[in-house]
């Protein structure tokens, strides 16, 4: 074996490779996906706008301006000097304010649905995959059963029934209060939003449970689990310390694609008239309302429609970027 001539140089080169944590690696890979990064920045912007809704908008959500119907973009409200940036709707409500408040409600509904469905999915999937046997059989048969039912027709039945019968399912006052505070709604109005979240999450957890189960099944056979077990770890410890953190990558991707799905699903229900109803603004019911007037005001559907599409697209790009970034086999 010959000794390299420039030993010193080689050494210097070897030392210069930075040490990076897995998180840093993923971040660097994610930043390289330009569209995903742009989408992320865009969504952060949208979220901050909706969080600051009361400070940005100069009109209240349900503030009616009699005789100021269908004012054009940038119309100035004479007595107060406030500007209707996007004009007003058919009963003189400020479009811009409603869009922003609607965004707050629509995005919160999507976020809560994702949160609940992923949490339930993770727990059910982890238990099912980890224990196997009859637990797995029962849980997964149930999931498969639910997935064979056509989703949209059933969603429509359930939400039409729940919305007409709001008292049927008791929801703790505290939950309504919290959700109401997030969405800037009264607890009474928050009820329909909570119901929609329940309906959406009630179906959403199925696929995440399947995903989680698959990941846990392969993780269960890994050596580090065996090692942990031989050190006397309990099932709960292994599930929470080893299974769930290691299975997070696909779940994170699923969650971000799920956000896109829930934004669209909520809007679709509202659009068809089976979601959150009119005085409460959501992008879906605002879009539905513009249908009646689009013959005279062709630009009207674009105002609530574009946010739905752009958010859906952005969440999809973020999910795509995360999938690439989190996949260690993929070279970028």
């Amino acid at each position, binding site marked *: 074996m010959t000794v390299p001539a420039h030993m010193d140089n080689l050494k210097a080169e070897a030392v210069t490779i930075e040490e990076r944590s897995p998180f840093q690696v993923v971040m660097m890979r994610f930043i390289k996906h330009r569209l995903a990064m742009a989408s992320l920045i865009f969504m952060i912007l949208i979220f901050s706008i909706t969080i600051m809704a009361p400070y940005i908008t100069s009109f209240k959500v349900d503030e009616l301006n009699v005789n100021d119907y269908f004012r054009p973009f940038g119309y100035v409200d004479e007595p107060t000097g406030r500007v209707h940036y996007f004009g007003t709707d058919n009963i003189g409500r400020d479009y811009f304010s409603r869009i922003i408040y609607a965004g707050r409600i629509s995005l919160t509904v999507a976020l809560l649905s994702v949160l609940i469905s992923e949490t339930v999915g993770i727990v059910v999937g982890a238990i099912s995959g980890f224990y196997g046997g009859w637990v797995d059989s029962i849980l997964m048969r149930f999931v498969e059963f639910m997935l064979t039912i056509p989703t949209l027709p*059933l969603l429509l039945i359930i939400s*039409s029934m729940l919305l007409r*019968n709001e*008292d049927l399912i008791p929801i703790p006052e505290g939950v309504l209060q919290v959700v109401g505070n997030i969405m800037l709604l009264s607890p009474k109005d928050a009820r329909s939003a909570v119901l929609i979240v329940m309906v959406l999450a009630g179906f959403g957890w199925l696929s995440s449970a399947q995903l989680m189960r698959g990941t846990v099944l392969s993780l269960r056979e890994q050596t580090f689990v065996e090692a942990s077990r031989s050190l006397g770890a309990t099932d709960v410890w292994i599930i929470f310390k080893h299974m769930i953190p290691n299975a997070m990558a696909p779940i994170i991707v699923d969650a971000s694609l799920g956000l896109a799905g829930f934004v669209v699903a909520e*809007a679709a229900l509202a*659009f068809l008239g089976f979601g959150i109803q009119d005085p409460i603004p959501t992008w879906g019911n605002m879009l539905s309302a513009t249908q009646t007037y*689009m013959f005279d005001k062709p630009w009207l559907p674009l105002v609530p429609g574009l946010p*739905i599409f752009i958010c859906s697209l952005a969440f999809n790009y973020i999910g795509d970027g995360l999938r690439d970034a989190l996949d260690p086999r993929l070279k970028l």
Partner: protein
Amino acid sequence: MTAYLIRRVLQSILVVFISAVASYVLLSFAPGGPLAGLRQITQSSRFKITEEDIARIRASFELDLNLPIRFSRWLVGAPKGPITIGGKEYFGDMVVGCRKPIEAEVLNSRGVLEVVVVGCKEEVLLKDIVGRRTSRGILFGDFGLSWRLLRDRPVSDLIASRIPKTLQLIGLETLLSLLIGIPLGIYSAVKQYSKFDYIFTTLAFMGQAMPSFFFGLLFILFFSIIPKGAGLPYLPAALSESIRNYTIPLIGDVIAGSAKDRLLHMILPVAVLTILNIAGWSRFIRASMLDVLRQDYVRTARAKGLSQNVVIMKHALRNALIPFVTIVVFTIPGLFGGAIITESIFSWPGMGRLYILALGDYDYPVAMALFFITAVLTVIATLLRDVVYTIVDPRIRLT
């Protein structure tokens, strides 16, 4: 294989049964229905509606029967009366419902007055329902009578009048999606990283993120409203044929109900459905094709000097289409269930629109029938998918 099939069929029947029970129970608890207006009428004194009238109306909608009995009559058309074995009647005195419930207003936990049934003045016995009008049961193809949309006419009439419209729409859409989507996916995969591939994947990605209701409205906007306003040729955007004759610039006079009229009405909804469908399908084909093109047998085929066409169309495509089968099968429920959202936007008088109308109008027999049909078809499609998959891909073993 046979054992597997039998097990799967049994499972499917169970799925259909449970979803029928679930949706029936859900809709039974929903307020509204044919009696919604009655309560207000009885409270005003202008009309004298006696208790007897209400009992009769309740009976005509079978609302006086207990839920399990009502469900069983709806599902299989039984029981029709006491069971007769050897000339003797059994269970004739069994209570199956309540003709005149005692109602009371009770304050519920949230401080709202609620009408609650607290007892029964007059019970319905099994022998009382002999000779009552009943359906033969939804399982035997009798969907009962419509409550609202076509009052007291069979639901099956209503559905039969809608099926051809949905079949037209979804049939054409599926055909076009296959004809356009598959070649697009193949071409994009074969020319991976080309300019075409780049544009195509971007557009397809957007198409998948695009909500169909917004896309539909955009189409109405850009192909119907704006051109019409500008005096350019435009496409009609609502219904499946127009009521009055109309004139379109360049295309000329169109007679209402003519073939030309119907064709023009079809273009927009079919285009919306097809484009969105192509976005999903061709992306799938592309991914599947890319996967196959990396396989050893494709390399072998190339190595032995086969032309590019033969390699792609014969060796690669056939294998790439295997997973695609599982997706195409799911157009079957759509063929009859309709595209709920798109049909609603374009007021297309198909099954999807009917479903929305029925749910909105409290016409539960119609909604239930449509849901039941879709559920059955979805289950059949799932079963078919698994069976077809094993036929086209011999590597998969059934367990």
